[in-house]
């Protein structure tokens, strides 16, 4: 597989880096980001980032707090639109289509790019309704039976069904933190997205719940491209195939996870993964 992986390093602030000549790209990237900068009012939070997300791969974004990795993640499903003062420049495409194009419907985009947040945020509704909400608003199922089937399979996929099978009508908020986060994952995958964005999905969870989530992420990789923001380097090392390291709003280094953690090119990356900065 090694030869399929596009490996690039960029210097901070460098201009757009085209595909290295001669690199084989049998699979097209799901998402390509070119020259992406994010501003909050006058303050720039992200500087000219170039990044690709490949299908059936987990890409983890690491870096110290405030380095802009969450800002980038939120660009991928245009969640930054909801922040009035936030401005995004550059070019992001999903399957070759510019997601900031006027012709793109943000509702459709978010159905295709699911998101799981840092803090579990189930709706204060029943477990069933939580998962059924997405398919329902997108009109994805014809009847109740189909909807139920979809809910059950989503819950199963998220590894939660066995725990909640007999209490689907209980409130989603009555679950434990780890269960709530898996419910949120089930909710996100119920709309059958193509990409799953995860913003520190395990940071509020205990180690056991975290390991369950991590196993889940590994399974979900079979069907989705996954981008995960994490503070835990062990987690990045365990779940991801690719890793991108951010510092002060700049993409310092990106590459195969193994390479980043064993043989980083940049000194800052080295410092971060060894715990000297961060």
């Amino acid at each position, binding site marked *: 597989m090694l030869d399929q992986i596009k490996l690039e390093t960029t210097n901070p602030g460098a201009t757009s880096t085209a595909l290295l000549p001669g690199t084989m790209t049998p699979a097209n990237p799901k998402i390509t980001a070119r020259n992406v900068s994010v501003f909050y009012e006058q303050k720039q939070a992200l500087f000219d980032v170039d990044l690709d997300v490949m299908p059936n791969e987990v890409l983890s974004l690491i870096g110290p707090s405030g380095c802009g990795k969450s800002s980038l993640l939120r660009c991928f499903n245009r*969640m930054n639109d*909801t922040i009035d003062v936030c401005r995004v420049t550059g070019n992001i495409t999903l399957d070759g289509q510019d997601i900031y194009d006027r012709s793109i419907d943000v*509702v459709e985009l*978010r159905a295709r790019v699911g*998101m799981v*947040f840092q803090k579990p945020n189930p709706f204060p509704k029943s477990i069933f309704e939580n998962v059924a*909400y997405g398919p329902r*608003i997108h009109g994805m199922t014809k009847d109740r039976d189909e909807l139920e089937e979809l809910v059950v399979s989503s819950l199963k996929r998220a590894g939660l069904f066995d725990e909640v099978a007999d209490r689907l009508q209980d409130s989603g908020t009555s679950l434990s933190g780890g269960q709530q986060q898996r419910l949120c994952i089930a909710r996100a995958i119920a709309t059958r997205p193509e990409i799953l964005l995860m913003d520190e999905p395990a940071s509020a969870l205990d180690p056991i719940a975290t390991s369950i989530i991590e196993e889940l992420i590994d399974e979900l990789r079979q069907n989705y491209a996954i981008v995960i923001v994490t503070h835990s380097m062990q987690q990045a090392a365990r779940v991801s195939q690719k890793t991108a390291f951010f510092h002060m709003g700049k993409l310092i280094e990106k590459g195969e996870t193994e390479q980043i953690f064993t043989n980083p090119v940049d000194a800052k990356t080295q410092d971060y993964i060894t715990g000297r900065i961060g």
Partner: protein
Amino acid sequence: MTDFFDSPANKSSLHTGMEARERLRARYRAEWMFKALGLGAIGVSVGFLLFLFTTIFMQGWPAFTHNFVALPLELNAQTLGDEGVISEESLSGADYDAIVRTAIREQFPEVSGRTAKRTLSGLISPGAPVLLREALLADPERRNAPNAITLPLSDFADLYLKGQISRSTYRTGEGELAIEVSETGVLISGADLAAGLESSGADGKISLSREMPSLLLYAGGGVFKLETLEGNLATARILSPLDAGETTKALDWQVRLIEVPEANRKFSDREIVWTDKLVERQLVQAKFNTLFFTRGASREPEMAGILGAVVGTALTLVVTLGLSFPLGVAAAVYLEEFAPRNRLTALVEVNINNLAAVPSIVFGLLGLAVFLTFFGMPRSAPLVGGMVLALMTLPTIIIASRAALRAVPPSIREAALGIGASKMQVVVHHVLPLAMPGILTGTIIGMAQALGETAPLLMIGMVAFVVDIPGGFTDPATVLPVQIFMWADFPEPAFQQRTSAAIMVLLAFLVVMNALAVVLRKQFERRW
């Protein structure tokens, strides 16, 4: 310069020494003072509230009962019929005034003279014939049981029976009294009269004027009002005649002292004696005052009820709620969820906050100028009243709703947006239902304000004297607080009671509304 943390004073004695103890004590003292102040504040307000409620309850409570009299009414073909035949038409046209008048006069055949007869008829409420007519029209068969029909006593007779006209003290006399009734008056003499009256007899002749407490002598089945006293001799006026003859000797006699002078009360000694007689004959019964709850405004306190005002209030509040709730919530949702943050929305926001502080009478003036004068809408109508109150309630609802919307955690919005819900779906499916308890609380507060509002309604003519129960949104009507305001202005003491009683009803309404708010809130919270 040594390091602060290395100075010797900062060793173990810092938090355990005498000074530290003193500081700690001062802290506890301050805390205790703070708690005591808070407790005091609560105590004072609870005290005032209790005082207020007690006075209102004490004054209003008697208004919930009224004394009715069951007279043997002559309800037959002669009085009710048209040439001897009773029909619906004849029932509706019969002279009920005469029937009631005759019935009460038959109880006191000795009363003569036009003034006296009129006073006697005045014991029964002027509304009694109306009620009698209504009763017979509703069920003509009731004429066969005339004794079962009870008619309200006049307000003062009722007050007298409730013990609110004057206190009386009784003294049983000893010895024999001679009573002589003649053309000029009644002469009473007896060896122990002076002792019985507790008058020394040394002061010579005493004239008992209307400005002095009344002395009534009960002897030989008659009642006499003493007019002059001279030792063991007295002259008197007949209030109720002797059982037999014009002269009698009585061994059992009683003197009654009515403390409030006749000139200072609206219920004369004669009326007191007549009312006592009716009670003695077991014709009077105190009953729950249904009239208070089933009738509209009236000049006669015993006939005045709050139904008109209650219906008017209900109609007005329906209009207010119907206008201010949807408008207020829609405005709040737009401003909070959709509006761009710019100077215009900031201006709107400031204005809404200012509107909440505008005196309500200004809204009344606005209603008068715009709704009545410009649009020519009907005066005194619940529709206009409701619109004016809606203007007044809107800012309250908008502010409360915005606060409730803002309190919905952003994570819920993000969650819904992240799945691909549109802005509208986020608001309708998630934010609004979560904010609903808060919005409802704000609405109920606004409605409670509207319920108690008087000033703006005065401006649009809802202070009119409306006898009929309003049947629609454009009928002339009044509302509870305005009714209370009007009754409080009437001089009759019976109206003062009704004022308090109406305040109790208003308070009951408020309690019911608040309870409803709590129930609704619970309902919504459980669903989520």
